[in-house]
């Protein structure tokens, strides 16, 4: 089960407004390589893991990704807080405003709604962990793209931190893969 804690992994405090940047960052909420897909992927795959280490790692990383989902939602909210229709339009994201206004909706930067087709669950520990390692690299690459687009230091600090976590997750999944493969041999 999950117990909610009234805090984020690092504090989210964004001082400037920027609806366009918010719409880019939203991709890590509900986009193809975002935190919603990551958490659902790991929390679903764990049911088929056989080794305790695998069950634990997928549970713990899946839980951390849920926390990251919340952080992304918080960044998007703070970047658009109080901004109205005209501001969204000036920033080039009037189309987002029409459908969601200042709401946080799980979609990609291009506006494609979240889909479970972004992830798999194969009941094959090796196939699943290999997918997870690729997913961590794709998430890391998306954070790199956001960093290239972002010139707000409050946002950059948090995005760098989240990017670093994907690198750590990749490392841990790699260790798990080695463990699983040595059990097979």
């Amino acid at each position, binding site marked *: 089960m999950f*117990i909610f804690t*009234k*805090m*984020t992994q690092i504090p989210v405090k964004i001082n400037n407004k920027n609806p366009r940047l918010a719409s880019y960052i939203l991709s890590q909420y509900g986009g193809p390589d975002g935190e919603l897909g990551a958490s659902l992927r790991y929390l679903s795959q764990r049911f088929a893991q056989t080794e305790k280490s695998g069950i634990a790692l997928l549970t713990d990383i899946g839980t951390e990704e849920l926390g990251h989902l919340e952080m992304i939602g918080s960044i998007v*909210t703070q970047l658009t807080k109080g901004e109205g229709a005209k501001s969204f339009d000036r920033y080039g994201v009037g189309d987002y405003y029409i459908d969601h206004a200042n709401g946080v909706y799980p979609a990609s930067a291009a506006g494609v709604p979240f889909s479970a087709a972004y992830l798999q669950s194969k009941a094959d520990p090796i196939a699943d962990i290999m997918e997870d390692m690729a997913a961590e690299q794709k998430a890391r690459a998306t954070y790199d793209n956001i960093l290239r687009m972002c010139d707000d230091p409050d946002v950059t600090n948090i995005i760098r931190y989240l990017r670093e976590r994907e690198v750590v997750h990749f490392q*841990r999944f790699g*260790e798990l893969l080695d463990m699983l493969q040595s059990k097979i041999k």
Partner: protein
Amino acid sequence: MENNRQMSAQQLMQKVSEAAFYVTDLKLYLDTHPDDARALRMFGEASRNAKACFEAFEKRFYPLFATSADCDSDWEWLVGTWPSQKMA
């Protein structure tokens, strides 16, 4: 946590999040290195420190866990900065 009396909510939250992060990161490491004696010792210390930080924060500011919310006269759980909000 001796000098937390002078800290603002924001400063103490920084300590809480650092302490909680250390636990999270060690936990992932131990999932794939369950026999690492040094990491096990570090986890014990990290875990005790995180608990002390949570307690210090909740005592001075507001509940982080619903189980810590005061319910004598009003619903204290509503108090504090929620993850969608910016800490003042």
